[in-house]
C-alpha cells in the first residue's frame, strides 16, 4: 500500500470525486460500512469548511438561509477545495462561484454581497505600508512621468455594484436602522471599503458628480492606468484628482514602469 495514493484517493473523494478508491482502503463492519465510515470524514471536512464560510460570509448566509447556504457550500467546496492552511484566506472564489450558480439567478445581488464581505476581509488583513515620497516625481523626465503608475492604499478597496449592496449589508448588522423592506435594491452604487484605526468603514460616494468622477479616477488607478492614460481620460481634472488622491492618502505609492 502506497500512503501517497491513499491520501490522493481521500482528497479526490472528500471533494466530490469518485469515492470507490478511497472506500476500498477502509475496513467496513456490521455497524458501519466502509463507505459510511469514509462518509463521516467527508461530512466532517464539509462541516468544518461550511462553518468557516458561514463565519466569513454571514450576510450571504442570512440572505439565503442556513439550509440553502449549507447545500450551496457543499458544491462550492467541491469546486474550490482549500489550498490554504488559514481560514482567513479561504472563500475568495465564492463571489465568482455565485455569479454563475443557477440557484441564485433570482437574487443576482448575492455575488456582489459576497464580494463585499470578502473585500472587508482583505482590507482587514491588509498590512499598512509606508506612504511614498511623491517629491521624487518631479525628478523624473517627461517620458518617465507619463509612464508613472500609482498604487492605492492597501487599507482601501473600491467596489461597484448594480445593486444597493451597502444597505443590504448594513441591514444585517446589529443595532441597524436600515430596514430590508425599505431597500431599493436596483440602485447602482460605487463603494469604498476602508480600514481606519481599527474600524472598517463601508462608504458610498455622494451623488455629487465630482465625487463620483473621483471614484472612477481611483478605480482607473486600481486598474493600473499610467499617467499618460489618466491625462487622456481626465484632462483638466487630472490635477485636482491627483492632489485629492494623495492628500486623502487614497494613493499610497507609485512606480515608474
Amino acid at each position, binding site marked *: 500500500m502506497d500512503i501517497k495514493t491513499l491520501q490522493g484517493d481521500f482528497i479526490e473523494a472528500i471533494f466530490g470525486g469518485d469515492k470507490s478508491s478511497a472506500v476500498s482502503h477502509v475496513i467496513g463492519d456490521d455497524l458501519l460500512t466502509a463507505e459510511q465510515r469514509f462518509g463521516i470524514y467527508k461530512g466532517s471536512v464539509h462541516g468544518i469548511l461550511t462553518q468557516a464560510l458561514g463565519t466569513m460570509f454571514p450576510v450571504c448566509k442570512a440572505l*439565503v438561509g442556513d439550509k440553502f447556504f449549507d447545500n450551496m457550500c457543499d458544491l462550492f467546496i467541491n469546486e474550490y477545495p482549500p489550498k490554504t492552511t488559514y481560514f482567513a484566506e479561504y472563500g475568495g472564489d465564492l463571489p465568482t462561484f455565485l455569479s454563475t450558480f443557477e440557484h441564485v439567478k433570482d437574487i443576482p445581488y448575492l455575488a456582489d454581497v459576497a464580494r463585499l464581505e470578502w473585500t472587508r476581509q482583505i482590507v482587514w488583513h491588509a498590512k499598512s505600508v509606508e506612504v511614498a515620497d511623491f517629491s521624487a516625481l518631479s525628478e523624473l523626465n517627461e517620458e518617465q512621468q507619463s509612464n508613472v503608475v500609482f498604487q492605492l492604499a492597501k487599507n482601501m478597496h473600491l467596489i461597484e455594484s448594480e445593486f444597493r449592496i451597502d444597505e443590504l449589508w448594513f441591514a444585517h448588522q446589529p443595532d441597524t436602522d436600515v430596514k*430590508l423592506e425599505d431597500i431599493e435594491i436596483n440602485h447602482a452604487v460605487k463603494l469604498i471599503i476602508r480600514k481606519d484605526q481599527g474600524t472598517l468603514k463601508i462608504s458610498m460616494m455622494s451623488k455629487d458628480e465630482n465625487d463620483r468622477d473621483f471614484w472612477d479616477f481611483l478605480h482607473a488607478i486600481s486598474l493600473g492606468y499610467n499617467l499618460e492614460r489618466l491625462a487622456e481620460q481626465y484632462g483638466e481634472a487630472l490635477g485636482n484628482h491627483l492632489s485629492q488622491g494623495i492628500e486623502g492618502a487614497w494613493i499610497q505609492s507609485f512606480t515608474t514602469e
Partner: protein
Amino acid sequence: MSNNTNLIKTALTGIMATGLLAVTSSAMAGKPGMEKCMGVAAAGKNDCGTSEHACAGMSKTDGQAEEWVYVKEGTCTKLAGGKIKVGKAKMK
C-alpha cells in the same frame, strides 16, 4: 510637447505646490462630505469574522445533489416585493 505632457506637468507641479509631501499617515480621510458613510461597523475580537481552527470533528450529511431542494428561507424573502430586475444585471 503634447497636450497630455502638459496636463501631467501641471498636475505634478500642483502636487508639489500644495505641500503634500509630508503626508505620512493614511489616517487622513477624504474630504468630509465626499463619502456618505453608511455607518461604521467596528471589527470585533473575531477579526472581521474569521473562523477559529479547532481539532474537533463536525457532522454534515453527505447528501446527493439531486435530492437537495434549493429553497431560500433567509432574509432575501423580506426584500421589498422580492422582485429583482434580473435582466438588468445580465445586460451589464
